[in-house]
């Protein structure tokens, strides 16, 4: 019954992976994501085109919450194409690629733009009984353009390749009310900069290699999922594993220990092949990140490449 419903539900892709890649200007997301319990049926494909708009005018310089008249409001816009495909009813492939651009409303830092990172994930239903289910996701991402990683907060990403593993626990009541809890560990590769020395951890490194801290994230969702409607409230937490802190009046740096707690809501309506979705998130607390308001809206199109066998 669960999977019957899912057939009609477009889903979100990659919120966690992409959201925190560019944490000072948290990104966008869309349909199915690695941290939910939603699957495409075998041979079903859903394509999503989404627009994201994230902005902040307040940020945490280490623990100091401040504004910066030489930044004003930092805005990240993204346009992403994503897809979710049912390899089997229990195994889905998710892919996505965003084009990102950044700008400030004040000061004189040059906005950056370009194709960011290609992401892919496999989600597998490990266990499912009486509405209780457990899922595992393995994913990764890789930069697809040679963008500058350390011109924060203008860089479009950190240029780190990532690999993540996630477990998702879900309970769906037959009323349509559901609860999800998820957690993940993301390994992030070191990156190369254009410089041959830099300062981090209060030290000079005579190297062009930056250590990007690994990261954990987790969250809970409470929502409603029935027929063509999905509506969810969520709480998410992201933490780097190590890293240094933005120094007093310094710029953020990719080596920073970025931390954030976000709350938000997500809705999706897909009565047929076409659907729409929208997401809102807000950073309630953080460290070395912007207090971001994140908005996303997408158009979904779902189809099947073969006649369903049943």
């Amino acid at each position: 019954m669960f999977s019957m419903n899912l057939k009609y539900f477009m889903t979100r892709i990659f919120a966690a992976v992409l959201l925190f890649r560019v944490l000072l200007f948290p990104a966008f997301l869309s349909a199915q994501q690695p941290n939910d319990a939603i699957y495409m049926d075998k041979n079903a494909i859903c394509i999503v085109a989404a627009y994201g708009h994230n902005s902040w005018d307040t940020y945490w310089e280490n623990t100091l919450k401040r504004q910066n008249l030489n930044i004003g409001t930092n805005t990240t816009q993204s346009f992403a194409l994503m897809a979710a495909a049912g390899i089997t009813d229990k195994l889905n492939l998710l892919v996505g690629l965003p084009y990102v651009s950044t700008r400030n409303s004040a000061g004189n830092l040059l906005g950056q733009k370009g194709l960011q990172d290609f992401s892919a994930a496999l989600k597998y239903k490990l266990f499912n009984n009486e509405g209780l289910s457990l899922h595992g996701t393995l994913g990764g991402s890789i930069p697809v353009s040679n963008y500058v990683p350390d011109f924060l907060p203008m860089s479009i990403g950190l240029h780190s390749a990532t690999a993540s593993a996630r477990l998702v626990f879900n309970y769906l009541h037959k009323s349509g009310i559901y609860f999800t809890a998820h957690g993940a560990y993301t390994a992030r590769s070191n990156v190369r900069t254009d410089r041959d020395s830099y300062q981090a951890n209060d030290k000079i490194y005579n190297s062009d290699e930056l250590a990007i801290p690994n990261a954990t994230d987790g969250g809970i969702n409470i929502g409603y999922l029935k027929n063509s409607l999905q509506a969810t409230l969520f709480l998410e937490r992201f933490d780097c594993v190590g890293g240094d802190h933005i120094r007093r009046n310094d710029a953020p740096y990719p080596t920073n220990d970025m931390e954030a707690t976000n709350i938000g809501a997500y809705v999706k309506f897909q009565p047929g092949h076409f659907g729409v979705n929208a997401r809102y998130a807000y950073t309630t607390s953080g460290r070395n990140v912007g207090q971001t308001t994140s908005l996303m809206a997408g158009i979904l199109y779902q189809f099947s490449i073969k006649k369903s066998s049943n």
Partner: protein
Amino acid sequence: MKMKLFPVIALVGAFIVACDKDIQNPLLEPYAVSSLDENAGQWKPYILSSVSDIVVPEPKPVTDPAYLKELDSLKNYIAPRVTPENRAAVEHWGAGAVYRWNEIARELSARYNLPPASNAEGKYPVPDAANPLKDPKFPFANPPYAARALAYLSVAQFDALVTAWNYKYKFNRKAPYKIDSGIKPLLPASDLPSYPSEAAVVAAASYTVLIAMFPGEVPYLDGKLAENKNAMIWAAMSTPSDITAGDALGKAVAARVMAKAKTDGMSAANNQSRTPAMIETAKSIGIIEPWKSQESPLRPTMLPTYGEVATWNFSKETMIAMRPPKPWIVGTPEFEKDLKELQGIQKNQTREQARIANFWADGAGSYTPPAHWHRIGAEAGKDAKYSEVRMARTLALLGTAEMDAGIACWDAKHYYFTPRPQQFGVKTSVGLPNFPSYTSGHSTFSSAGATVLSYIFPERKNEFEAMALEASNSRIYGLIHYRVDCEMGVAHGKTIGGYAVQRGQTDGSGL
């Protein structure tokens, strides 16, 4: 279910284990020097009137029981107790004391290279040397500050080492392992006389300069001083009496050098009350639309009277005489051409232009452009296997040229007081320095540095000049300088570096 979960858990574990992300600074192989520079005791010091200004007491003869006891201790007490940590310290300091203390100064410059934040009243508090760790930390190690700190550091090292070389060959006490073949040095053996210890001389001189330049770092520098001196004992390169004599000499010379530093005009280099008159002067010679801070709240220009600080290798009259000519005036076709070039790059900056701009940016949090050239000079000296004294000469010639470049460039900047491209709507991909545009500091520092290094390492002239040109262009690619700022800065820097070269040619080294 357990079976299915296992791969997931295994993968997570693999991620955690596989990722050793630590960035290690490259290990440097200690080297045997290419020349002992035996006659360096006759080289001309900068601040001392002669190499006999400071008296180093005659050491005890090598047959003296007290000295023999030192040798015995090195061989039978210290050597068997050297730990792996001690060995790592020996390896580290084996790269050279001048090399390592220059690196320390660059690191401190980077750590202190942050402009103060504005306060609630919209003002920028001035760092207070008496409260160096209070926000804003003292110093703000901007390029002029770092250029000066490194110049005095290098000069103190040089004056202390030429004095040390004088006494080394006067007393001619051999290294411990030359006297007792049972003593095995952990660093390359050398015929250089070991009294006073050159490493201790450098460590003490450097320490004395750096605690004055970075007064919040005394505990950190205490640790470095002790480690450098101890490493030479662990390595059996010196006896404690070599170290003690070197320490005293280094501190005495550096005290003379810092006495000069205190009267060079730096304490008056941030005289903001002079800027209205500077703007009037600029207007009177035809500058329209003088420079305005592009920061909010408006930040006062960086060290407007740094141009009045004492120069090393030429007089103030010479400095004024060689000040670059008036730049293009806003609104002229030449100015419009330069501005258009920047607007074109802004629209279509290539990745290679961004790379060059980033590589040479040396902005906040970096060790600054003059220190970047110190790094290039120190690496060149290491590659050429220079002795401590010749490394110090290299960095003193370079360091004084860099400080002179800073002073003469700041003089030009605040004489002409010209606007940055950002006053005409141009953005930047590297961050905008808060002082007038003409001439480009990067261009001046880099060209002066390349000129000095090309004299010292003539076989690498093309390489250094190409680096300087790239550093200069980087400011166009980063969109914060007009071409005229850069081209005139390069020409100016070459002249400035030439005065340091003249000094080098007449310092008695014959090099």
